[in-house]
């Protein structure tokens, strides 16, 4: 049997079997769950080669599945993160209700994401897209909190995006007579200008929703923070990348063929820039770690979109690299929050403090991820951000550089807040019972954290597949001179010169870490958080006086004008207005039979009066 179809059959059958096994006691469902994620992923890595395709016909449409170099990069994210988060989930979701339902949706999500990447035709792309949407929706509402607001909001936005995409698909079908992505790319330059504009806009609405592009992002904070954390890591790490994947195809293969379409790229890049700034600012303001990470995800996706939007070779490369890195570190961070929430029962930064000694391994994973997120060398985040700045400067987007730089600096604030709030600071007696998370949760986190480090030191591991992907997209081959694209490599030295620098940085870092730790141990003086009598005020019992409260007050006073307008309010207002309007329209049905009879007579009379216009 064809391996491609086998993978999907295993996924689907595994999902159903796991769901059914949920009715039994015992660990059968866990075993089935891991198997039905693990087996297809292994099959994917061993038996699938780029270019292998599988075609069939259904409902009068031609279907084709196969993997391209570009989708291979994203498939790496999905398969890797999916596998890690699956292992994590087994432990994290233990003793929860309806675990088999969680597993079912988890497998379907992984399947649909791989399906999106495998699709070479728009119909199966859309089908998998929608499966991904509803399975992730079921995860968002899984915990039953704010279902009617957050869940519905997520689904409405997804539906609007998906329907925009569906409209583009049917329009494409009517224009080309084919559903193949390749034939779309080939015949796109021949379309009329209106269509050339309409199709990318519609597609970008669809992809923009999933990748939380600025005016379409309002679903994201709620959805990311309401899903179980084991899922959120996939949600933010991999699922949002599906939007990026689609966006890459649209930006490179379609928009570059629009005559005079470069401003289109500018718009997208600027939207990405605004997304990055606003996401970061809102992230700083959050006290709940889940929300913080959710907004941070929006911001990071903004960077990626800037890279993809600018579209120069270096920018594209930085965007794709950041996409991979973001999957790794954001996946880790969501897992960390999940572990802390599981052990302490809350994810509020102002409540939990001083876990460094209780959960050292978790701290280590968080540390790596935060460093990567903040873009500090030697971890992967640094390289990608550097490349982004360089590409922006290289393509004369100075204003955008300032925006990105601002947001990137501001990101330090929430990184600090996250790390400090949870792990550092005073140890409260309230949290003295907290233990390290189970090994099955810690190991995936650490693996991901270490891989951010590995990719930071050896970026070639991931830059090579990205390079191949970019070649198929039509960028020039770097011919092995990959390293020369960025001055970080070619000015400061080549690969050989780079690594000593990295090692030096690591060495300095480790030195200071040891130094500070040892010094810190010596001079520690234990006081309670309430011990602030020196400032002259005696706090009351119920006042939360953790340092994380009103953490960045002065900063917010500075940026307040930026944050005053929330687009969410406009959406809510619009939705309420529409509901009121619709509530009014249903009053047509007055309940009086005579009125209905009157409608009939009026209908006839109108038709008779205007018969020549209507039927003439």
């Amino acid at each position, binding site marked *: 049997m064809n391996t491609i179809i086998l993978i999907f059959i295993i996924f689907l059958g595994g999902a159903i079997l796991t769901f059914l096994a949920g009715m039994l006691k015992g660990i059968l469902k866990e075993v089935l769950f891991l198997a039905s994620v693990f087996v297809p992923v292994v099959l994917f890595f061993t038996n699938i080669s780029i270019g292998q395709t599988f075609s069939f016909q259904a*409902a009068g449409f031609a279907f084709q599945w196969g993997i391209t170099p570009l989708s291979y990069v994203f498939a790496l994210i999905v398969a890797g993160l999916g596998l890690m988060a699956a292992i994590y989930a087994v432990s994290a979701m233990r003793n929860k209700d309806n675990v088999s339902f969680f597993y079912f949706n988890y497998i379907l999500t992984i399947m649909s994401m791989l399906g999106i990447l495998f699709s070479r035709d728009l119909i199966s792309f859309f089908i998998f897209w929608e499966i991904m*949407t509803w399975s992730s929706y079921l995860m968002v*509402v899984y915990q039953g909190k704010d279902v009617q607001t957050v869940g*519905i909001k997520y689904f409405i936005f997804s539906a609007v995006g998906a*329907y925009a995409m569906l409209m583009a698909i*049917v329009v494409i079908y009517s224009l080309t007579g084919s559903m193949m992505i390749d034939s779309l790319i080939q015949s796109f330059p021949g379309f009329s200008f209106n269509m050339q504009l309409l199709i990318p806009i519609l597609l970008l609405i669809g992809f923009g929703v999933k990748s939380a592009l600025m005016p379409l992002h309002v679903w994201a904070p709620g959805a990311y923070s309401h899903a179980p954390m084991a899922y959120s890591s996939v949600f933010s790490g991999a699922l949002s990348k599906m939007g990026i994947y689609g966006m890459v195809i649209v930006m490179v293969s379609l928009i570059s063929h629009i005559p005079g379409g470069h401003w289109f790229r500018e718009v997208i890049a600027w939207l990405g820039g605004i997304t990055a700034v606003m996401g970061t600012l809102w992230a700083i303001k959050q006290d709940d770690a889940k929300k913080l990470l959710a907004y941070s995800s929006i911001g990071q996706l903004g960077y990626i979109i800037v890279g993809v939007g600018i579209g120069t070779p270096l920018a594209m490369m930085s965007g794709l690299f950041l996409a991979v890195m973001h999957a790794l570190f954001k996946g880790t961070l969501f897992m960390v929050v999940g572990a802390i929430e599981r052990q302490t029962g809350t994810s509020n930064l102002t409540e939990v403090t001083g876990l460094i000694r209780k959960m050292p391994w978790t701290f280590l994973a968080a540390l790596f991820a935060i460093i990567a997120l903040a873009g500090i060398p030697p971890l992967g985040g640094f390289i990608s951000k550097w490349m982004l700045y360089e590409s922006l400067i290289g393509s004369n987007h100075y204003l955008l550089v300032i925006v990105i730089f601002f947001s990137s600096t501001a990101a330090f604030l929430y990184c600090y807040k996250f790390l400090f709030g949870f792990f550092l600071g005073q140890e409260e007696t309230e949290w003295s019972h907290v233990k390290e998370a189970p090994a099955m949760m810690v190991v995936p986190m650490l693996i991901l954290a270490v891989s951010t480090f590995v990719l930071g030191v050896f970026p070639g591991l991931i830059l090579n597949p990205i390079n191949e992907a970019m070649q198929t997209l039509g960028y020039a081959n770097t011919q092995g001179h990959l390293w020369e694209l960025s001055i970080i490599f070619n000015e400061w030295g080549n690969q050989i010169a780079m690594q000593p620098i990295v090692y030096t940085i690591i060495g300095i870092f480790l030195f200071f870490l040891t130094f500070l730790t040892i010094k810190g141990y010596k001079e520690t003086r234990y006081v309670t958080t309430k011990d602030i009598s020196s400032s002259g005020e005696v706090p009351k019992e119920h006042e939360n006086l953790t340092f994380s409260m009103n953490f960045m007050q002065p900063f917010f006073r500075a940026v307040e004008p930026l944050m005053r307008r929330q687009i969410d309010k406009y959406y809510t207002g619009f939705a309420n207005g529409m509901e009121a309007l619709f509530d009014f329209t*249903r009053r047509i049905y007055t309940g009086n039979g005579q009125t209905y009879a009157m409608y009939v007579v009026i209908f006839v009379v109108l*038709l*008779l009066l205007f018969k020549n216009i209507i039927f003439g």
Partner: protein
Amino acid sequence: MVGSPVLLIAIPLLAAFVIPLIGMIWKELVRIIPGLVLAYMLILSATLLYYVSQNGIIVETIAGWQPPWGINLVFSPLTGFLATLMSALGFLVWLFSYRFKRNVDFEPAKKYFIFLMLLIAGAIGIVITGDIFNQFVFIEITGISAYALTAFYTGRNSAEASFKYLMMGALASSFLLVAIAILYSQLGTLNMADIASKMHTMNPTYKIIALIFFITGIGIEAEIFPLNGWAPDAYTEAPGPVGAAFAGIVVKAGVYAIIRMIFTLFDIPSAYDFLIVIGLITLIVAETSALRQEKLKRMLAYSSIGQMGLVIVAFGIGTHEGVFAALFLMLNHAVIKPLLFFSGSSLVFNSKEKQIAEMNGLGKRMPLMAAFFSLGAFAIVGLPPFAGFWSKLSVLSAAANEGLLLIIVLILIVSVIEIVYYFRVVNRIFFQEYSREKSAAPHRPRVNALVAMFVLAIAILVIGFYPDAVTGILHNASKDLLNTDEYINNVLQLGQSLTR
């Protein structure tokens, strides 16, 4: 040959007359016989459909007079498809409602099954007859059984709903008679094929006036916008399975009648545009009205009206793809909406008011019913990989092929509204807390009801995963509808002669 199309009508009528007698012998037979009859109709129509797809249209004459003179039944791929669909659905409705309410007395129960059987027989009659006055008679049979079924429960406002339905139905039959009078006065014939072949000789003014009265008369049955005031009330107050039968069977017959008029009988091209406009208005008004409903069945009723609007839009596109999409929508709607009605009425079975708010947390108490309901909800809003997706896709691509982008936008916006109200209910069922005071008490549906729902659910999945299972039949049917000349020739020259 296992039989002929006329048995689809004759057998249920015979059974309807026999049942009161047999009920005096053994009461249980009153419930069983309609099921047997419906099963027989299903087998008969399915075999005939197969026969027709192999050998061409069957034209059955009645009383030995050839088509322009006698009444004839036409069993073509289109009518056969609809008849098969209706009898299959009828059988499932019977299966579900077999002992639906155990506390109902014998006398009403007996009548319930007679009415149900005649409702389905009447709807099939509307579809397979080839004579406009005969169609009128069948519309009345369907109508009166529908009024009676709507008023089945004595404890509620069902009489009010039924009376409104009846008022509209009476107006509908009056308008139909006017239209028939005009047509007959001009052409001197009542046979559809004969009318179609002579239509070009008719004065255009009269043609249009006749069409207007036809559209109004049948539009009431087909739930076109300003004429559908009865529909939400009737769906709400009728028993759950009857709501399913209305949505799945009666409306389909009404839509078929309109479509037959416009596609075959009248040669007025602008009527297609009219269909699109009126269908869109129906779709939008119904779906927006459904958004804020408090009662489950009323919401389903509006949703069903909206779906019919979409079907009419798809027919109005008028191309082969459009007709195909419309038939596909009809099929999917006939499979999905009954599932929603069945599982929904099981969910709120023990509630008095049947409010949506009473469904909170029922997912944990009645997991299977809740799963069926959400499967139906997922399918009807057109999420892949369920049945509704393919029909929505084909509607949109049919519209896109004709360049009707505005229609696509409107349909998609309405789909979003549809998603909102269906998902609100699904959310309530699964993700909100069950409260003993406010939620409906759980109810264990009987095995026969479960079987009926299982069949529908499997149909949804099969169509969703393997749409080619049905597309062949649908393509044949849409070819059949569009080929007017062949219809006329077949009927007037007796088509495929019956070998018996």
